[in-house]
């Protein structure tokens, strides 16, 4: 099975958590922060109410934050990346400084995860409760499995009896894994399972490895069929594409339709690197729902929906409905158009801010003797002369207030001029070449 080689990679780097004593089998990948991760890691804990300031969060308490002092504005995500997905393969592009720093983070934030937030996830997919119970058992010593979760485990009927303690649970886990067609040796699979945090969605994409400030987040985002970089990652959130979905549908059809196809079979047929059975499983679930829901609701729709009028051959109403739909469509199109424009503007604004910043830094380096506050003015004036609406000086401490005001004024002038032509982005590109 494709997952196998991946698992072996995982095992290599694993070492048990220091204070999750019961979890001797719970490997923790010491993934170091190796890449300047452009994408934030997987969704983990996305269901947590983040308003309450990390209450009940799985990760270290705020007292640990002091150790991350020096990371703060540079790697916003990575310090707090206990939520980062677990990446067995290190893609090593990151500065070693951060590496060291992150290891430090791992060591100091040794607090085991809290169980409480996990209970929030217990309602979701089939696999989730299993993992939860594992965690529960190991961390608290008791095994309390919320009964409602068990009822949802249609594939795991023996759970109630099986989960008495760690060992039993683990061994029984193996049996159950076999039942569902996931044939693998006990340990690696269990490790694989246990690493996967309960996530908020059936897609099993939250991958939390509790104290792993993980690194290579390349895998956490997009895993298109053509990509091979992130191959072995386990519970990353998969970003589906139409092409991938096509391959999926083909595989399903080959296996006899959505009802008859099994996740394992589909996975094998698809032969996509990086795709795990969990991804396929959740996708298959969605697929089935999408196919059969519209047919199921056909009956009731006729009564309430205005489309039912069509069937009575009331032409006038028919036209009305069509026109209403057309109207709705127009408004939607408009919103979309505006959103596109807005997004492009936002991107360009940031891009130019970045360019200015770089320019400024370059100038500072090349002309160290010159008064720093003089630079921004020059830079800004040269760019604002190019009639660009989005340009502005990057918020920079050294820039004097007067400079900023000038910039602001120039901005307003240009933006008023350019408002009408804001729909033609290409002309606005301020090329500040040196």
């Amino acid at each position, binding site marked *: 099975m494709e997952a196998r080689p991946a698992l072996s990679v995982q095992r290599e780097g694993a070492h048990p958590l220091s204070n999750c004593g019961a979890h001797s089998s719970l490997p923790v990948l010491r993934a170091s922060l190796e890449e300047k991760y452009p994408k934030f890691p997987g969704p983990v804990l996305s269901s947590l109410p983040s308003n309450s300031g990390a209450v009940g969060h799985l990760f270290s308490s705020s007292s640990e934050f002091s150790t991350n002092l020096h990371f703060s504005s540079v790697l916003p995500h990575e*310090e707090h990346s206990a939520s980062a997905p677990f990446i067995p393969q290190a893609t090593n592009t990151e500065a070693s400084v951060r590496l060291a720093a992150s290891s430090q983070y791992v060591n100091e934030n040794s607090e085991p995860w809290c169980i409480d937030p996990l209970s929030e996830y217990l309602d979701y997919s089939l696999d989730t409760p299993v993992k939860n119970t594992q965690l529960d058992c190991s961390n608290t010593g008791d095994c309390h499995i919320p009964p409602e979760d068990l009822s949802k485990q249609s594939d795991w009927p023996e759970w109630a009896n099986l989960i008495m303690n760690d060992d039993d649970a683990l061994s029984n886990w193996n049996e159950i894994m076999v039942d569902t067609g996931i044939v693998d040796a006990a340990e690696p699979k269990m490790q694989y399972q246990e690493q996967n945090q309960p996530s908020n969605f059936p897609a099993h994409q939250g991958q939390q490895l509790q104290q792993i400030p993980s690194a290579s987040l390349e895998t956490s985002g997009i895993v298109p069929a053509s990509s091979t970089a992130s191959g072995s990652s386990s519970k990353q959130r998969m970003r589906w594409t139409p092409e991938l979905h096509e391959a999926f549908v083909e595989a399903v059809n080959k296996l006899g339709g959505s009802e008859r196809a099994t996740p394992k079979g589909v996975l094998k047929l698809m032969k996509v690197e990086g795709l795990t059975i969990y991804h396929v499983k959740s996708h298959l679930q969605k697929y089935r729902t999408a196919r059969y829901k519209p047919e199921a609701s056909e009956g009731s729709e006729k009564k*309430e929906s205005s489309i039912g009028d069509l069937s009575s051959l009331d032409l006038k109403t028919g036209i009305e409905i069509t*026109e209403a739909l057309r109207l709705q469509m127009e408004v939607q199109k408009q919103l979309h158009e505006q959103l596109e424009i807005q997004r492009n503007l936002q991107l360009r604004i940031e891009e130019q801010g*970045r360019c200015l910043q770089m320019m400024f830094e370059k100038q500072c380096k090349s002309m160290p003797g010159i008064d720093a506050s003089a630079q921004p003015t020059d830079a800004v004036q040269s760019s604002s002369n190019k009639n660009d609406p989005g340009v502005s000086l990057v918020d920079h401490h050294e820039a004097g207030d007067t400079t900023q005001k000038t910039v602001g004024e120039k901005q307003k002038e240009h933006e008023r001029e350019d408002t009408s032509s804001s729909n033609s982005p290409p002309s606005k590109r301020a090329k500040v070449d040196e």
Partner: protein
Amino acid sequence: MKFGKRLKQQIQETLPGWGDKFLSYKELKKLVKLISSSCASRMMMNGSLEYGKAEAEFVYLLNNEIDKFNAFFMEQEEDFIIRHKELQQRIGRVIDTWGPNGSQPSEKDCKEELGKIRKDIVDFHGEMVLLINYSNINYTGLAKILKKYDKRTGGLLRSPYIQKVLQQPFFTTDLISKLVKECESTIDTVFPPPCDVISRQLVLGSQKIGAAGEGIFRNTVAALLTMQEIRKGSSTYGRFSLPPLSLPDQSDVIQSQLNSPIAIP
């Protein structure tokens, strides 16, 4: 609290199940206030440890928000991909059954099925656009809160952080945009050619947008207006601000919708 209010309104109008997926702007703003007030009371130099701690906490929350957006966005995206394909298949089936080579001559059934498909496509289109709107409004909120943070605490968090945000899955909406465009072209094949002005006014008088469509429609209108309002101009205009929104002529359509919200049955 202008943006905060707008955001709140948007959330109120939003589709069911989306409400808690938006940015927790208010809470973040409170945190910024807290940080700025506690930092202001001590010298920045002496309190640098505290400051670092506070910033770390702030960043931590932001990361959580982003995780939330990513998760929700990608899940919706996946659903949309599936639905898109399904719709295309349905249309294909209709064309096969009732088209020129079709076996079923029954016009009534054809009309019915077509009607359903049209409604579904329009709603589908609407939902996708709303997802893009969701992405955008959260991004705007993030940008604003970061700007506030830098302003209040003198930090340098905004620039590097926003660069990372730009690459997040939830902000890279290209795929959804593409699906939206494909939807638009599909619609042309499924809808009859545009009628004249009279029937449009007929519609404006008596809306008959179906139940699901109504929620989407209202949300869409609200989104457009929110965007307009947000970009009208602010007290801190000029730095990384967007120019005011310029809606084309059909904005009167939107205004009429707004003025009589109850008219939509």
